């Protein structure tokens, strides 16, 4: 016990030390803080890439960290469904890079990364510039697989939006919903696994039901699904019934829910067994794959996604390239912004350890995905993940979904916590603020 107490005191002293260390960011390890060697380039300024850049600088301020992201502002997919439901404005889900640049000393380059030469350790940008790296972090998110669904190409997406990357596509879908007459039918086609944000399609129809219930109460929602089961299924279906009655109809794979062909001009979706569904507004959530730069870098496999070494998320195929976020094969961790942020922190620590000749730490990742069914009705799924027997696994006895039998106060609290979570994770990622304290 003496040694515990003594060490406790030492750690407290170290962490507290006159406030100076705390002010500098106590995560910074004194062993590494003053060192400078190392150039790290990050590609992708979303939850994974921005977090990785920030935590690399926190851990080792002397590192030369460059973040490559074409957009000057990043729209988050989390809470973009709430924009569709009318509960948030687009200006409330957009985040810039000023604090990462100014406070953390990260070089932010607003260019598109076109190619990676893993041998030469360079990234080529669209403006012709070449960035050398010692370690590369790719966080490219997803690309839509326009080969994956007959009739659904980039032109079709202008008529039947996917809105699975937040921004113009999200605005397009909202404008179509606003233009739709009361009594119309909205159809969402959900893909098979794996895809970005497993609860996303189901939160989306909830939010659109919220909008309809206020403005177009005679309208219907049809959810055609390529799966027989989905994230938080029982909770979603309870919530839909409680809040929206029979407005939302879900058709799973076994009931011929899988869409195999799309006609963008007639807004028709054809199922596996030939049934034609015509919608007034149609939202196709299509099959997906890792973002383009991952394919260029040679880190994807035949699945279209990126296999990684579990402890560090270094590519299994190309040395010194680390990949985090939706592009990776990290199941049972979901493709969520929360997990991208968690993976980025672990990977930043692993890179710093590696650059300093140390073994990587024991990784632990968490996930909590809130879904907002209505302004006062939130549900969640959580998980804690570790490397067990060489694989990423969920820790037994941890995680799981909100209780089925929770009362209204519990659901209301989870809706409030969703907002708190959003405001916290955007601070942790971009050092920006969410704007609004409540949803209503």
């Amino acid at each position: 016990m003496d040694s515990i107490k003594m060490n406790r005191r030492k750690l407290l002293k170290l962490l507290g030390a006159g406030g100076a260390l705390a002010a500098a960011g106590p995560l910074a390890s004194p062993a590494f803080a003053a060192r400078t060697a190392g150039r790290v380039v990050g590609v992708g300024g979303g939850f994974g890439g921005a977090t990785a850049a920030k935590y690399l600088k926190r851990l080792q301020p002397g590192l030369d960290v460059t973040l490559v992201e074409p957009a000057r502002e990043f729209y988050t997919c989390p809470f973009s469904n709430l924009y569709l439901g009318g509960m948030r404005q687009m200006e409330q889900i957009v985040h810039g890079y000023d604090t990462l640049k100014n406070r953390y000393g990260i070089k932010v380059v607003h260019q598109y990364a076109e190619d990676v030469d893993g041998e030469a350790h360079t990234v080529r940008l669209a403006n012709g510039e070449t960035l050398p790296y010692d370690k590369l972090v790719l966080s490219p998110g997803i690309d839509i697989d326009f080969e994956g669904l007959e009739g659904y190409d980039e032109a079709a997406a202008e008529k039947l939006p996917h809105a699975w990357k937040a921004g113009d596509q999200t605005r397009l879908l909202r404008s179509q919903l606003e233009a739709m007459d009361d009594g119309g039918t909205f159809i969402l086609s959900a893909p098979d696994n794996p895809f970005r944000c497993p609860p996303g399609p189901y939160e989306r129809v909830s939010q659109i039901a919220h909008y309809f219930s206020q403005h177009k109460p005679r309208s219907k929602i049809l959810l055609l699904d390529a799966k027989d089961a989905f994230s938080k299924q029982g909770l979603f279906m309870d919530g839909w019934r409680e809040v929206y009655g029979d407005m939302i109809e879900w058709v799973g794979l076994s009931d011929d829910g899988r869409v195999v062909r799309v006609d963008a001009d007639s807004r028709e979706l054809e199922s596996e067994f030939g049934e034609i569904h015509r919608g007034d507004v149609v939202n196709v959530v299509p099959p997906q794959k890792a973002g383009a730069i991952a394919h260029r870098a040679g880190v994807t496999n035949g699945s279209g996604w990126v296999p990684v070494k579990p402890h560090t998320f270094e590519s299994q195929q190309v040395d010194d390239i680390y990949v985090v976020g939706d592009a990776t094969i990290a199941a049972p961790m979901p493709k969520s912004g929360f997990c991208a942020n968690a993976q980025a922190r672990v990977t930043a620590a692993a890179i710093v350890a590696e650059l300093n000749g140390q073994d990587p730490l024991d990784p632990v990742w968490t996930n909590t995905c809130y879904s907002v069914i209505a302004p006062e009705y939130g549900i969640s799924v959580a998980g804690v993940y570790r490397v067990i027997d060489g694989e990423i696994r969920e820790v037994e006895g941890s995680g799981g979904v909100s209780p089925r039998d929770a009362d209204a106060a519990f659901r209301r609290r989870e809706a409030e916590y969703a907002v708190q979570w959003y405001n916290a994770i955007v601070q942790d990622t971009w050092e920006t603020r969410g704007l609004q304290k409540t949803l209503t």
Partner: protein
Amino acid sequence: MTRIMPRHVIGLSAAALLLFGGQAMAEEPISYEQASLLASTCFACHGTDGRKEGNFAPIAGRPYESLNAQLIAFRNDQVPGTTVMNRLAAGYSEAELEAIALYLSGITDRRRD
């Protein structure tokens, strides 16, 4: 980002700071870096270093004893009305929760980021 480290802090080798936790992982020392990494799993909801204030309980700089007791109570699912912390705390050993409580209690600067 300017970082000034007092000499006595630099003098301590962080890697040498080992925590010998409770029963669960009695033989496994938890290093300072590992404690930092464990604590960082709180940040997505509680903000960097747990500094975000809002409708979650503030966690940065709270006394070690109360943080540790609260985390253990979450782990044992003994906090009425808990939504998610019981599900999350169950993924950590008692020694790890102690390390997290130590890390967070040491955040002395409570400024909001």
